[in-house]
């Protein structure tokens, strides 16, 4: 075999490997669409569940997931950006920095069911928030922190040093430099991290189990201290806990969850390219 042939074979193998990555995603999406599209209609999206969830719609679960995603964002984003700015711009090599970094690594490694138990202990019971949207948001928010902090810190560190120098040399303070140069330039990367974290939170099941999710609650939450249904947990319930559940409703629910997560990702990449284009570099 000549070197040219070896080269050709290697390139084909590598290309095939890359192509194979696409395959499972396409299969999953197509399969869920084929199985679930039939269930989707106006009633399914807007009605309350009825007849032990075998009829009616999944509106409370959709709304619950949307609310929880917002709640997660409100809890995690300010904390995460603050921590990322601290780590990237202010941290010196001392015990506090080491403690923060250690905490982030460990937070990232904790299984989500453990977050659920932590949320149960800390927010539901100790802070007496009850099984509620606020307890769920706090738990999901903390779970989301590591990925948002890490990606935000990377994005901040990727802003070339010379922009900081220029800003400072024009008489901007360090805080102004961060606010007007560093953060805007890091924004595309920070957005990516936020969306990654939020879409993971939107699809989370185990964490919701003890902190917020209602098994079956055919009404809408009235306040932040109410329980709510949520799509991932609802999916788990109707797929395993309810006898004689029509398959189309199960796959229809999965399809809606998939659409929410995918549209989050889509929004992120649109925002990212637009911000980048405006910045022109």
């Amino acid at each position: 075999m000549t070197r040219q042939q070896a080269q050709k074979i290697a390139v084909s193998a590598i290309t095939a490997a890359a192509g194979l990555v696409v395959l499972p995603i396409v299969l999953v999406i197509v399969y869920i669409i084929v199985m679930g599209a039939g269930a989707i209609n106006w009633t399914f999206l807007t009605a309350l569940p009825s007849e032990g969830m075998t009829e009616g719609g999944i509106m409370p679960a959709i709304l619950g997931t949307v609310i929880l995603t917002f709640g997660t964002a409100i809890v995690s984003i300010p904390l995460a950006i603050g921590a990322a700015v601290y780590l990237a711009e202010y941290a010196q090599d001392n015990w506090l920095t080491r403690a923060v970094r250690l905490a982030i690594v460990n937070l990232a490694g904790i299984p989500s069911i453990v977050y659920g138990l932590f949320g149960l202990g800390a927010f539901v019971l100790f802070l007496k928030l009850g099984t509620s949207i606020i307890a769920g948001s706090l738990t999901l928010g903390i779970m989301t922190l590591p990925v948002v902090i890490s990606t935000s810190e990377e994005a901040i560190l990727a802003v070339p040093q010379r922009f900081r120098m220029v800003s400072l040399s024009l008489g901007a303070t360090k805080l102004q430099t961060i606010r007007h140069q560093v953060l805007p330039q890091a924004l595309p990367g920070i957005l990516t991290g936020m969306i990654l974290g939020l879409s993971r939170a939107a699809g989370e099941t185990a964490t919701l189990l003890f902190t917020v999710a209602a098994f079956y609650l055919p009404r809408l939450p009235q306040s932040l201290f109410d329980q709510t249904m949520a799509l991932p947990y609802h999916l788990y319930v109707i797929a395993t806990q309810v006898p004689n559940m029509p398959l189309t409703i199960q796959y229809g629910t999965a399809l809606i969850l998939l659409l929410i997560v995918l549209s989050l990702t889509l929004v992120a990449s649109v925002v990212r390219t637009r911000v980048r284009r405006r910045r022109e570099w």
Partner: protein
Amino acid sequence: MPEQNHPKISLLDVTFRYADETEALRKITLDIAPNQVYVLFGPSRSGKSTLLRLLNRLSDLTEGAQVSGRIALNGQDIFSPAVRVAALRRRVSMVFAIPTPLPGSIRENLTYGLRMAGATDPLMLEERIQQSLVQAALWDEVKDRLDHSAMALSGGQQQRLCIARSLALQPEVLLLDNPTSGLDPLSTATVEDSLYELKRSYTIIMVPHSVQQAGRVADRAAFMLDGELIEEGPRDRIFINPTHERTESYVTGRFG
């Protein structure tokens, strides 16, 4: 008129040490009079840029570094606790070797320093924009596209924009750290020419691109080597009739 007898900037026994104790500058004593082009030249790693960065305390950003001695601007110690570093940097403004427009329009670049200092009056900002662009010899080229991205300018235009951006702050001292390093000969000439006009309003301290450039633009020059000031004086004496042998061998190109 500024008082010609008093130095704009004076350094007394200034030593700059990195965290690892190496000395980038050793016992520099130097007076710089206002309204002239003062050139700091010497081989690389001689401490020229370090000295420049000390003058507006960008050196503060070097972690663990130590400064001893005294640096005064108009007789006031720039390291005194009474000095606000942001305000100092508006009075002593730096232009870097690599032209670095900030992301955004030409207008946003020019008003950045003023806005950060809290200026909002649109008339004043417009006036400063025009004034500084004229002074930096860029007005005619960009006056019709102030809202276009600064990144779209050519390298030479970007560097003149950076000079204008400093001038918009109406500083007292302009620090130019090898401002023509990446520029073609024509842009270099434009920047050098603008210095003659600028020194009427500002004190300019410059690290030149080459000995030849030093000879072209300097009113006074200081020759530095390994963190020490070898000698300084009026241009003609330094470049035609230097006292020290090492200055002479450097300006005649025997080492460098």
